[in-house]
C-alpha cells in the first residue's frame, strides 16, 4: 500500500539553527513528492515538489528538500530557522495508482515545527 511517514510529531529548533523535518515514503514506481505548510487556522500552502531531475529541490521561504531514492526519503530542510517558520508541515506523495485526471495526495500525519527565539 502507498504510504507516507513523518516519524516526528514535533521538531524543536533554536532560531538561526538549521532545521530538518523528516519524511519517508512507500509507493510503487516513481514518486511525485510534495511539502506543504499550514499555519494556525489557515489552509495548506505549497512549499515545493519533486517530480524528476535534481535530487535537491528548492522551494518557497528558503526551504529545500532532498530526494533520496535509496532511502525512500524526502526530508525538508532550511539552513537557518526563523520563529515565523513555526507551523505544521505535511509531506505528501501523489497516488501513483491513478494515471490520469486528478492529483490524489497521500499525506503524512504532519510534523509540528517549533522554532524558539
Amino acid at each position, binding site marked *: 500500500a502507498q504510504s507516507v511517514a513523518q516519524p516526528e510529531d514535533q521538531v524543536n529548533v533554536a532560531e538561526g539553527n538549521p532545521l530538518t523535518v523528516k519524511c519517508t515514503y512507500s509507493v510503487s514506481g516513481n514518486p511525485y513528492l510534495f511539502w506543504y505548510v499550514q499555519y494556525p487556522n489557515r489552509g495548506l500552502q505549497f512549499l515545493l515538489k519533486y517530480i524528476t531531475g535534481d535530487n535537491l529541490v528548492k522551494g518557497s521561504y528558503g526551504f529545500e528538500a532532498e530526494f533520496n531514492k535509496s532511502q525512500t526519503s524526502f526530508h525538508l530542510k532550511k539552513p537557518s530557522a526563523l520563529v515565523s517558520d513555526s507551523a505544521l508541515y505535511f509531506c505528501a506523495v501523489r497516488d501513483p495508482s491513478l494515471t490520469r485526471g486528478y*492529483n490524489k495526495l497521500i499525506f503524512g*500525519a*504532519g510534523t509540528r515545527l517549533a522554532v524558539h527565539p
Partner: protein
Amino acid sequence: DAMVIQNPRYQVTQFGKPVTLSCSQTLNHNVMYWYQQKSSQAPKLLFHYYDKDFNNEADTPDNFQSRRPNTSFCFLDIRSPGLGDAAMYLCATSRDRAEQYFGPGTRLTVT
C-alpha cells in the same frame, strides 16, 4: 493575485440544520477538491470535481454533497450536520495532476 477563496471563514450551525460552504478560484484550474481536517490531522479528501465530473471518495458519508456550477465555484453542502462534522473544511484546486493550491479553510462549529 490568483488564489483560492473560501467563504465564510467561520461558520456556526445547529445540529441537523443544513449548511453550505463556498469556494471560488481565480486560477482557472480544472480540478477542485474538498477536504475535511480535524484537529491538526492530515486533511481527508471528501470528493473532487474533474471539470464537471463529480468523484466521491468511497468513505465519504452521504450527508456530504457538492455542486460545481461553473469552473470558478464549488460548494460543499452538509445536509444534516452532526457534532462529529465539526472540522476545518479545505477547498483546493489543481491543473490536472499538478500540485494542489489550497484555500484558507472554513472552520465549522456545530452546536
